[in-house]
């Protein structure tokens, strides 16, 4: 009975759970979208189209086949990396999603980095000054940051930095390979708008976790050994407090990938959220399905990675789980 066996079992269980989640998600997504009222062919051709033209387009789109056949074709295609053709744009769904990922992924990363760089130090500072004026001020600030909707903050940033000062564009996206500097400028304001609430949440979580940790015995021991409070917190506290922060970070990343749609609208960025939103209104079901499943994969994979990271950081979890 070595730890290796436990670890393998743990991994197998987690991977099986991952696969099952994906299958169930695929089924639910497919069924829900199939129930949605509205004919994609009619949507494309509008109100003056003849029934023959609509029928011809339906056939072209492959909408004639029964539901179970279309489901199996879809899942089967995805297993070999084929997400199908977008019904409205007539282009491979995988290509359309990849294009949007070139915006959404860097945007999420920028927001993550900014929120970590800003949020964690604020949380640590507040915890070290617990009960003092600095702590109160920082936490009021963080509470405000959580409460401000990111699209509103985004519009405020636009008014100040784009409309009034004209330092940065109001939005839009220049492809990286065309002008990386311009692309980066376009990401700045939306990145900040997305980062604000995340940074505020991180600051609060960091502070709470650190305050909890400082009440533990090992900190008291460290103090007893002659360390100052700050030294004890820096040397022993922060590392131990990172565990809950890691969980929140994982959740936040998944949220940023999927939840940027409002900010994408405010800054007219061609991200994944807007792609899905437009595709739903145009009844481009193949595209909606493909993009949604990608989001499910990203979210569950992030959770899986966080779980695994937990298990490595805290070996007790493996035993408990198995």
């Amino acid at each position, binding site marked *: 009975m070595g730890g290796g066996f436990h670890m393998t079992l743990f991994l197998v269980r987690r991977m099986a759970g991952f696969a099952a989640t994906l299958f169930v998600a695929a089924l639910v997504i497919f069924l829900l979208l199939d129930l*949605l*009222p*509205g*004919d*994609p062919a*009619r*949507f*494309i*051709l*509008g*109100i*003056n*189209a*003849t029934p*023959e*033209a609509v029928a*011809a*387009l339906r056939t*072209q789109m492959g909408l004639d086949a029964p539901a179970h056949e279309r489901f199996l074709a879809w899942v089967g295609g995805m297993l070999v990396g084929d997400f199908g053709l977008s019904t*409205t*744009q*007539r282009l491979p769904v995988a290509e359309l999603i990849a*294009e*949007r990922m070139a915006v959404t992924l860097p945007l999420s990363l920028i927001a993550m980095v*900014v929120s970590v*760089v*800003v949020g964690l*130090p604020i949380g640590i*500072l507040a915890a070290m000054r617990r009960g003092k004026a600095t702590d109160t001020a920082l936490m009021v600030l963080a509470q405000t940051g959580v409460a401000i909707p990111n699209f509103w903050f985004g*519009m405020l940033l*636009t*008014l100040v*930095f*784009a409309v009034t000062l*004209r*330092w940065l*564009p*109001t*939005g*839009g*996206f220049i*492809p990286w390979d065309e002008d990386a*500097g311009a692309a*980066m*400028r376009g990401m*700045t304001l939306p990145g*900040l708008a997305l980062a604000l609430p995340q940074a505020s949440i991180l600051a609060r979580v960091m502070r709470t976790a650190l305050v909890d940790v400082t009440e533990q015995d090992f900190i008291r021991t460290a103090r007893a050994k002659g360390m100052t409070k700050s030294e004890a917190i820096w040397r022993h506290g922060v590392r131990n407090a990172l565990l809950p922060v890691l969980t929140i970070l994982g959740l936040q990343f998944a949220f940023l990938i999927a939840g940027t749609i409002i900010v994408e*609208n*405010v*800054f*007219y*960025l*061609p*991200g994944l959220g*807007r*792609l899905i939103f*437009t595709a739903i*209104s*145009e*009844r481009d079901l193949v595209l909606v399905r493909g993009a949604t499943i990608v989001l499910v994969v990203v979210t569950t994979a992030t959770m899986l990675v966080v779980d695994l990271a937990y298990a490595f950081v805290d070996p007790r979890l493996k035993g408990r789980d198995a």
Partner: protein
Amino acid sequence: MTARNTLALTVAGLLLMAGPALAQPTEIRIGVALEPPTLDPTAGAAEAIDVVVYQNVFEGLVRIDQTGAVQPGLAKSWTISEDGLTYRFALNEGVTFHDGTAFDAEDVKFSFDRLLAEDSVNAQKALYAPISAVTVIDPMTVEFTLSRPDGLFLFNLGRGDAVIVAPESAANNGAEPIGTGPFAFIQWDRGSRVVLEQYGPYWGEAPALTRASFVFISDTATLTNALLAGDVDGTNNFAAEALAVFENNPQFKVLVGSTEGETILSTNNRKEPFTDLKVRQAMAHALDRQEIIEGATYGYGVPIGTHFAPHHPYYLDLTDTYPHDVEAAKTLLAEAGYTDGFSATLKLPPVAYARLSGQIIASQFAEVGIELELINMEWAQWLEDVFANKDFDLTIISHVEPFDIGIYANPDYYFGYDNAQVQALNETLNATTDEADRLALAQEIQTIIARDAVNGYLFELAQTGVWNAKLDGMWQNAPVEGVVLRDIYWVE
């Protein structure tokens, strides 16, 4: 301290990346709300397609000008036979497609054979049904034979649905459009913008602009900011509620013009109680057009009393047929047997004019005892429920097709108006080419449908463009869908 330093560094870093963007005097960036699904105007009904490519990338045999008149396009001239059944077009020489291939009569034949084919997915195929044959006489002459005279034939040739495409490139036009127009397609950053550039070997007069981008900004507040910040130079049709910001700003000009959009309270004429003329007349009396126009279009709509565009020479002002009169409405309802009124549903598509008009009409109808339940819908659902399945009582929609009074002669159309007299008149109108006769026929139909109160006639949608004050040459009116770039230039 660490936090403050980090913050300061972050801000400094961001500021370094900032830099001003300068507009070139021959470039234009136009903000538009909707992104086209594809760029092929012959395979979809979306207005957004024509906005980008019509008369810019693609051209037809003829083109529609700002006033709605037919002008020569790829055809420099034409003759029409006595019986109105044969049209012979002389084509311009030296025309090339953007991929370098030459244009000739074979391309014309190819384009129309494709449009009329069995498996055609042209959204307006029905408009071209009168064409029975397209014959190549010689490389620069092509002849159309019609099965019946069609008074709108030339106009329809000028629509985006009838542009000339090449056999070599037609299949790819959705993603990479190749036409004969003054601007060639350069790139489409999906979700973001489409870029066009002046086509050097263009056969006609070269446009003043060298480069144009259409930037897709769906949010009204965002587009306002982009205009104010100078990130876009204009937009062809902006939300009426946002115009106040620009109206007194000397850096912008607001262009208010007409469209072909008759906005109506569409009524299901097949369904009780709307089968009763008295009920429809009562609804017409209950409507206060001016209030609706103020509330739903911020005063920019033009009142209509029938299904016809007020700027058209055939238009007849019938707004006084059933003036706003609550008592008359109540009396008519009582005569029809609805002393206590009735309730009905009003299905609303996702456009501001419909949603706003719906609320106002609900309160106006409540005054005469008609209880409306408002149901908001997405486009796809509206198209299926209301348009295809005819499952509705009332709806509000703008009919944007030019000269579309023929829908009142089609009993299968979604509002289901079945009147043999109108059907006969419409058939005569279609077969008549004499202007005076056409005018008389069109006005007779307008009068009948107004008296019959087939639908509630509300207003003609306005086109409200916002442009940089230094730009000139934009179309004020929208007789067809499109943002035509050829005449736009920067004034220094």
